[in-house]
């Protein structure tokens, strides 16, 4: 790829890295990443991937920006309160880097649209805030054979893992079914330290870039857990479950499921 002078300057710190170079930067420019949620996690993931020069970034979210989002959702501002979150984030990302094609999708993701939506993308990032979506995205990525970088945050703790199609465990190998509604509190009920999604989203964006570049080791078969109060990172090995209902030898889940609403959306 031929870089313009502006691009040479913008991406110079990437190009001089042996692991990236001009060829790696060209891979980043060709990559298409689909981000679920334009909230706490989706904002930093999209922001850093925009800065990195990812060619196409799609964002899906059905919500509008509220004042209570601004404590952690860094792509939004007082100027965009009331605006769809995906439009607010698109505006912010385009101001940062006009090279990037930001596709804003103001919809609720469901079993009826997810496969079509992610079809043309290379990597899916889950920044959703609820269990029904997390399981739907896991199942859809398994079925559509898309690499998935999933993150979760609550109070002072966050988790990240990377799920590769046909290689290692899926999210259901870890937790077969979503917990019943009400058992696990949402961020709205329990609170979240505003900077926490920045840490977890930054880790997710890093996983995405390594997948694009084909460099380093991703969190395959591992769950990385961060505790912001204690300042600890813990990596837990997650084996593939041979009797996983989705990716096991005799799967019982062969089509997508929309779990009951009743979960609180943040």
């Amino acid at each position, binding site marked *: 790829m031929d870089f313009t002078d502006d691009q040479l300057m913008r991406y110079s710190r990437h190009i001089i890295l*042996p692991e990236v170079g001009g060829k790696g930067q060209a891979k980043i420019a060709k990559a298409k990443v689909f981000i679920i949620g334009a909230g706490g996690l989706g904002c930093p993931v999209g922001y850093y991937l925009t800065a990195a020069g990812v060619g196409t970034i799609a964002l899906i979210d059905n919500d509008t920006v509220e004042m209570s989002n601004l404590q952690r959702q860094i792509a939004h501002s007082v100027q965009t309160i009331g605006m769809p979150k995906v439009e607010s984030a698109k505006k912010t990302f385009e101001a940062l880097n006009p090279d990037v094609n930001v596709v804003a999708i103001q919809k609720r993701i469901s079993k009826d649209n997810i496969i079509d939506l992610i079809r043309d993308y290379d990597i899916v990032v889950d920044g959703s805030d609820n269990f029904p979506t997390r399981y739907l995205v896991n199942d859809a990525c398994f079925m559509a054979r898309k690499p998935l970088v999933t993150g979760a945050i609550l109070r002072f703790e966050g988790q990240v893992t990377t799920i590769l199609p046909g290689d290692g465990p899926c999210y259901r190998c870890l937790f077969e079914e979503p917990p019943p509604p009400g058992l696990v509190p949402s961020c709205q009920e329990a609170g979240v330290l505003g900077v926490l999604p920045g840490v977890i989203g930054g880790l997710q964006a890093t996983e995405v870039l390594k997948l694009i570049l084909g460099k380093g080791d991703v969190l395959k078969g591992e769950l990385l857990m961060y505790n912001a109060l204690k300042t600890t990172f813990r990596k837990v090995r997650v084996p593939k479950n041979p009797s996983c209902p989705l990716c096991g030898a005799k799967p019982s889940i062969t089509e997508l499921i929309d779990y009951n609403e009743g979960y609180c959306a943040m």
Partner: protein
Amino acid sequence: MEQTIPDKKINIKGLVCPYTFVKAKLAIESMEVGQILEILLDYEEASRSIPKSMEDHGQKVLKVEKVSDTDWVLQIRKDKD
């Protein structure tokens, strides 16, 4: 002195770090292993930093020569893809 004919020449006069190395690195990337890149530059610091960075990246520095009051010529052989 032995003369080596370069396979590619770039002129990066007027550029400063890090763009000197960015241009040199992109040029090396576009070449085949074994080929030689010749770089003409006038930013003194780059006459030291480019050879060092190229060696860090596994390339072979064949020549660093001050050719005038302001200019340097470097020759780098691509050893690593």
